[in-house]
């Protein structure tokens, strides 16, 4: 693995931020909305992984969940419905040094953005993608989404939806170059944190589906799973997730699953017995698009000097305005 110039420059000084330094504004989500839990876990992740706010960007589409970037004191981009992934790809291409996160809803990703989703998996650029799956279109006030369970009554499906829900895990696991797939439920905050941390650490396209409660338009959908911990099956493995002893007592339904086993991952993703939670698939060997396009070059002194200058230029402030330099 090569170390980027940015990393070299940043390694010259250390920085640690408190939780509050990643927080921005009062979230405008409903009480009990699962997006709040995701936000908390992500802010914790940023603090613990010591992400520099100026090196971190959250890109979202449109939806309740896509308000996420407004609540992070990092760079943020609340963009166009369905387009979060290709926009994030653009950001990554222009600034490979940034930590790129994507927040996308089940409508945003699995309906209108579905074509981008498939191709983003295949590009396998280094970014952490959080699918906020509340199984409904929240922002537009309760219309069935592709992940709504069969029979969901909504404003566009008054007698219940007709189709089996699309399974974002099996879809993702079916695409060429898939490299990291995980699932978690918003009501186990420590696991949200653990899974997102693993996703962040993975070098490549990390896809995390968070089953997210929407008490406003999908009330009670996960009531039983919340009451009966055995409805959640935690996937553990020495190379995957290891459950904290405090959670072990509650979550007894556990399955040892080697995350490098793609075909077993697909089986687990398709099973309907319990909600699998943890890392389904992890393959650090899949080449990333940015690696393929920019193989590590021989570092001559000239190249290093030019690179350093470009790096420092990112922080340049022109005291007399742009005309002074152009």
């Amino acid at each position, binding site marked *: 693995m090569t170390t980027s110039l940015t990393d070299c420059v940043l390694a010259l000084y250390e920085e640690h931020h408190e939780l509050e330094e990643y927080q921005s504004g009062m979230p405008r989500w409903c009480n009990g909305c699962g997006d709040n839990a995701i936000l908390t876990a992500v802010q914790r992740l940023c603090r613990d992984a010591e992400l520099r706010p100026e090196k971190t960007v959250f890109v979202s589409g*449109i939806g309740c969940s896509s308000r996420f970037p407004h609540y992070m004191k990092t760079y943020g981009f*609340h963009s*166009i*419905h*369905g387009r979060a992934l290709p926009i994030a790809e653009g950001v990554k291409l222009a600034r490979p040094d940034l930590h790129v996160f994507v927040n996308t809803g089940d409508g945003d990703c*699995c*309906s*209108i953005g*579905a074509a981008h989703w498939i191709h983003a998996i295949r590009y396998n650029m280094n970014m952490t993608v959080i699918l906020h799956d509340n199984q409904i*279109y929240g922002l*537009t*006030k309760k*219309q*069935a989404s*592709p992940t709504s369970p069969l029979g969901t009554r909504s*404003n*566009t*499906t*008054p*007698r219940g*939806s007709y189709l089996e829900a699309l399974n974002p895990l099996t879809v993702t696991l079916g695409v060429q170059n898939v490299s990291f797939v995980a699932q978690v439920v918003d009501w186990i905050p420590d696991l949200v944190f653990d899974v997102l941390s693993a996703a962040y650490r993975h070098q490549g396209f990390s896809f995390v589906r968070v089953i997210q409660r929407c008490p406003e338009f999908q009330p009670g959908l996960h009531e039983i799973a919340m009451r009966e911990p055995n409805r959640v099956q935690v996937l553990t493995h020495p190379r995957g997730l290891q459950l904290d002893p405090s959670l072990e007592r509650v979550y007894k339904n556990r399955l040892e699953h080697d995350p490098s086993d793609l075909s077993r991952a697909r089986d687990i993703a398709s099973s309907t017995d319990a909600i699998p939670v943890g890392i389904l698939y992890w393959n650090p060997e899949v080449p990333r698009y940015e690696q393929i396009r920019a193989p590590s070059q021989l570092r001559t002194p000239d190249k290093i000097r030019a690179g350093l200058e470009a790096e420092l230029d990112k922080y340049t*402030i*022109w005291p007399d*305005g*742009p005309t002074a330099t152009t």
Partner: protein
Amino acid sequence: MLKQLECSRAIAEVIARCRPEVVCAYPITPQTHIVEGLSELVRDGTLAPCEYINVESETSALSVALGASAAGARAYTATASQGLLHMAEVVYNVSGLGLPVVMTLGNRAVGAPINIWNDHSDAMALKDAGWIQLFARDAQEAVDLHVLAFRLAEELSCPVMVCVDGFVLTHSVEPLDVPAQDDVDAFLPPYRPVQVLDPTDPVSIGAMVGPEAFTEVRYLAHHKQLQALERIPQLAADFRARFGRDSGALLHGYRTGDADTIVVAMGSVTGTIEVAIDELRDAGLAVGAVALCAFRPFPLAALAGALGGAQRVVVVERNLAPGLGGAMASNVRMALRGQPIPVYTAIAGLGGRPVTRASLRRLIEAAHADAVDDLTFVDLDNDAIDRELARWDERRRSGPSAENMLRDARRAR
């Protein structure tokens, strides 16, 4: 029969009475209540036979309508703003193929910045896509225009977009008459498609046409619009005869007879304009108004006639064509070509900013005295703009303007 109804609900009910066989939509504010209403009417059997499908995007919505229409079904969809732009490629295709799809557009601003409120940027972005565009001035006309739209579309094999101001009209609740089923059936005959799937005469749709015939095929789109210019007033007269009210027209004139100054506008703002005109008339000013109902085809001759004796024209428009002014005013000027009178453009009500009677009065009074610029922005906060421009000058990296101006507006409050 008048019923207290939300306009969107009434539109859903009237669409159901037009008996579409395929309805497809992807939800977007402020269109949602229309398609939610329709899904309910399909589920409870009020609208049958009909297939209602929730698709995964607007491009799919109009593509499904296109396929259904090509296969001989009466097809309907509805959208707004970003949704219309999402389906843009298919919008051109539907008209290019001469398919009589009817679409409701809940007019909404187009981002960025993100805005869900009313203006006409969406309709203007696709004004030249070959669709007929009708603008409703009030909720009742919004309902009625749909009946007219299906008949017009199917007579001419040309798609029709019914433009209804988002929120201002779509979400207004008032006593509305939904045309009765018998009357709709009498006005709108069953759909007889010009092309059907016929095993004895199989066709392929979607020819590749080179320079040898492309202009001629495109000309036909223009020809249909010219036909629509004739048919719209006739259909409006038919409609009046059956339903007893004036809905649909090329344009509606208001106190234009002896007016020296005439205001031209489209959509719900025309109601406020008429009130302002009444007040100014009371104050002794010879002013009048024209509400355009048809924007495509653009009624050049009818408008020239309505503006006949005016000394000046003020076009109040809810859209901005950056680098030009307004999309409407340039069309109005075309109607007045050869006449040396000023046509003032007033950009108003972008992104849902209310267009108040007081502002309109000020504008019309000033224009009546020829004391306005060619292009004015009604209620523009010049100070806020100056402050942002100063930030641009001060700092190369002044940041995104929308965010800056929001912060600035909060501070000013």
